[in-house]
């Protein structure tokens, strides 16, 4: 959750400039909505309940969940106006997330 919070604060400027932040997780819509309200984030939360999209991206951490279930590998992807990937960061330790400053720089470089 904290990674979203950090990103939200740092990216608010970029968001105002018209960048859409789409947050994908296996959470239910209700959980995402609750979190969005709690963190006051202008994100669009989308629910990938069965991880089908996460799997297509090659971002499933097999058996990485608390009860051995598959979970997403944390990742942040900056996509330009033409729909092309310009920058991305994949987690190798789920406690560590990209520095919001790096994400912001990638967004500004578009």
């Amino acid at each position, binding site marked *: 959750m*904290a*990674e*979203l*919070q*950090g*990103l939200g604060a740092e990216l608010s400027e*970029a968001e105002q400039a*018209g*960048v*859409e*932040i*789409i*947050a*994908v*997780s*296996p*959470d239910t*819509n*209700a959980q*995402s*909505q609750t979190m*969005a309200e709690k963190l006051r984030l202008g994100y669009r*939360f*989308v*629910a*990938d309940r069965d991880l089908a*999209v*996460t799997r*297509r*991206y*090659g*971002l499933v*951490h097999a058996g990485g*969940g*608390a009860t051995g*279930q598959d*979970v997403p*590998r*944390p*990742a942040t*992807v*900056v*996509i330009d*106006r*033409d*729909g*092309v*990937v310009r*920058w*991305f960061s*994949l*987690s*190798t*330790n789920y*406690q*560590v*997330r990209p520095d919001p*400053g790096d994400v912001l720089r990638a*967004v500004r470089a*578009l």
Partner: protein
Amino acid sequence: MRSGRLAVLSVIVALGTLATYVGLFGVAAVRNHPEGYVIGFAAATALAALALARSRRWPAWVALGLSVVLLAGGAWVNFVVARVPATPTVLRVGERPPDFTLPDALGRPVSLADYRGTRPVVLVFYRGYW
């Protein structure tokens, strides 16, 4: 320094490390350096060992017990539990990622393709509550 003081210092370092990491989890500089808490617990363990070397009284044993448990637990979380194996991602800089349509928090469909030609997107995959 006397054994008792070293023991107290060890406990302060151990609990201070824990409080800093948990309390400042929202701060990227703290969260993104989880090895910091492992180092903090290791320092507390070293202080407790020093206290024990000076005097085998109970405060030194308490400090050593606490710091060893935190060091073992912290190292296990950081180096074993939190490790994310490399995955064969299809993401490539300069290429279009796979399109998708998923429901948003209000059940409305969101497609990546909707933003093409209109605005940039930051796509964040996260683990959720699990």
